[in-house]
């Protein structure tokens, strides 16, 4: 690390195996090394042929514990192909944020893992949401802790019965899965 800090840089296109000071180890190809920020930009998955999608890592060079040289590759960035569409980026971010918000609503706060898995299972067939630690199904049937069929309340008898059955089934399924593991 000391050597790099003193002016050595990583050559673009190098395939490196890197160990970080946090104990992480990975392999990647150097996209660039940015001197001012001391950031090494790498891409993973070049060799695996996992398609055009890569994992990009921006790693502070001073957190590299050790690395080894695996080979030299082509410069991964072709300047002639470096196009960016700001609208696309904005749209992507907006959709990602929306998705994150939607996902966040699906995560119960302060609930057990079992409750969350029950929630996820119920959500596959019924519209569900969290009301604190209570699962609300179809906006009328409430399943509160400990999420047993007996704890299903509210809703029309048919809906109530339906939720109970699904809950029972999912509980069994989760149990069997756990036993299987």
């Amino acid at each position, binding site marked *: 690390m000391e050597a790099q800090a003193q002016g050595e840089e990583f*050559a673009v296109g190098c395939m490196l195996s890197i160990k*970080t000071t*946090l104990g992480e180890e990975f392999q990647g190809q150097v*996209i660039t090394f940015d001197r001012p920020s001391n950031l090494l930009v790498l891409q993973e998955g070049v060799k695996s042929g996992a398609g055009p999608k890569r*994992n990009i890592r921006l790693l502070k060079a001073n957190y590299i514990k050790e690395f080894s040289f695996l080979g030299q590759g082509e410069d991964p960035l072709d300047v002639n192909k470096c196009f960016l569409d700001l609208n696309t980026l904005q749209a992507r971010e907006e959709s990602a944020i929306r998705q*994150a918000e939607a996902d966040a609503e699906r995560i119960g706060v302060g609930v057990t893992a079992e409750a969350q898995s029950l929630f996820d299972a119920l959500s596959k067939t019924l519209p569900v949401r969290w009301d604190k630690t209570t699962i609300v199904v179809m906006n009328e049937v409430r399943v509160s802790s400990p999420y047993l069929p007996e704890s299903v309340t509210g809703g029309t008898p048919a809906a109530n019965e339906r939720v109970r059955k699904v809950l029972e089934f999912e509980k069994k399924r989760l149990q069997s899965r756990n036993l299987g593991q």
Partner: protein
Amino acid sequence: MACRKGELREEGKSRSAAAAAAAPLVAVGDALLFTTMCIIGMPVDVHAKDGSVYSGIFHTASVDKDYAIVLKKAKMIKKGNLEANVVNGTLIETLIVQSDDLVQVVAKGVLLPSNGITGYVGGNSIEAAAGYIECLNKDSGVVKPNESRGNKKHKSQTRFAAKRENGFSHADKPTKVLGSSREDHNERLDAMKLVKIEEAHTLPVDGRQGGDGSPEMQSDTHNNPEFQDKGATNEVQGSRLSITTYEAQSAPAVNTLEDTMQQEPKGLSSGSNALEDQGQDRSDEIACTVATATNISIASVPIIDVKSESCLSASSNPFLLVPPKNSGVKKTAKESKLNPGAKIFSPSVSHHIMVTSPAMANGASVPYLPSTYTMAPMATAQEEVDASSFAHSPMPVKFAPFNNVAVGNGGSDAPYVQPIIGQVINRTPQPFRYTGQYQNFQASPAYGHPNVQNVMFGRGPVVCMHPISSDVVQSAAGFSPATARPLLTPHQVHLPKHQGTASAQALQLCMAPPILASGPQPFVMPSSIPIQQPLFPVLRPIAVPAANGFLGTKFA
């Protein structure tokens, strides 16, 4: 590997003179800047100095000297060995990771443009998607046929979405974005009403005369748009007419009309194009009629379609019932276009009759019906006249139901639309019936193959039917659910087939007849429809009465 800085510079020059030249001058290298921008909006994991890991959406980065980043919707997924002001598990709206704390940023599944065109293509697709939305807005907003023409291609693509929107809009009028444009459309439409009406008149006529419908049917995307457009034009015209006549009557009606109007613009653009040529000849005559009630009547068929949509929005029972008729009307128009021979049969006329009958039911005077019947015999040539006669039956409401159906039928898309409508309807008090009817309608077209003859029967039966109709309607309610589903599937399937072959024309024709019959009692028919071919005979007698009855009952 490490190498001397000078070497890197040389390499950079070989890569790109621009990049090499710029790199030393910028606080952060171009490549890093580019990479940073590539991961904007991507979910990333950020490792901090204390070992904690935060997951969030990469929002932006500071590239001035220090490289700090901003995450959106971040949450800690791994706790570090230092106390942080972030609670594990909670969602942080915006998280700033200072350069000092930053160890690593990991973005997974990134498409680097340099890795191929894929990244770029992805961008294009996004833009295209945005374009669709814009097109939709335009369609909804643009009333003028000329503009719509320009957007034809887009329309074909967007129609699906537009239709869906329409269906949704019916359910929730105020919520839709289109709403604002609707008013404008209406105004414009009013202004253009005369012209449009003329066009509409011409359209049906053209279809009958031209007999070029078969090719249209065959090609779903290109041709169908025209089909739909024509149907849409009819609808639009009708809506316009209805709007003019009914504006004062009720706000809800206006809303419905507006909804229909939105849909109409789409169809209008294409339909107007086709119509213009043919329509111009007759436009003069039509224009005169338009001014009067007769004009309205002409539009009545199209109007019906429009109103049907409005009905959906209104979710009123009568409207719902009506929709089937509308589909029938549209179908008839289409059929006429498709089958040149159909003109002779004057299926369109029969359709018109059907429409009129509904109108009658709506409260239109009985006398009108006779006139319509006579008109039917008149055949395609005098369809306009017939229409005018029908127009007398100022049944804006009734027409509206027709509109709904028509919309659904309009394209291959129609099936989709109809289901949506059905759902909307379901919300209403009589969900089952509505759905069943819609479905029936769809199915009915497919079965319709029997052709013009069915239509013909429809005419005769229609007259007789009036008494029967009420009974039929009742029965229809029961039957509708069962029949509807079966019909739907067959209907969809049939359409493609028909399109492919010459038979398509016949099918289309057939479709129309069912519609007529179905208008009110399509459902009743459907029970028989499953049989399909055998159904024809059954359909004919039943359908006609049913329709009349439906209208009468509903309107009553």
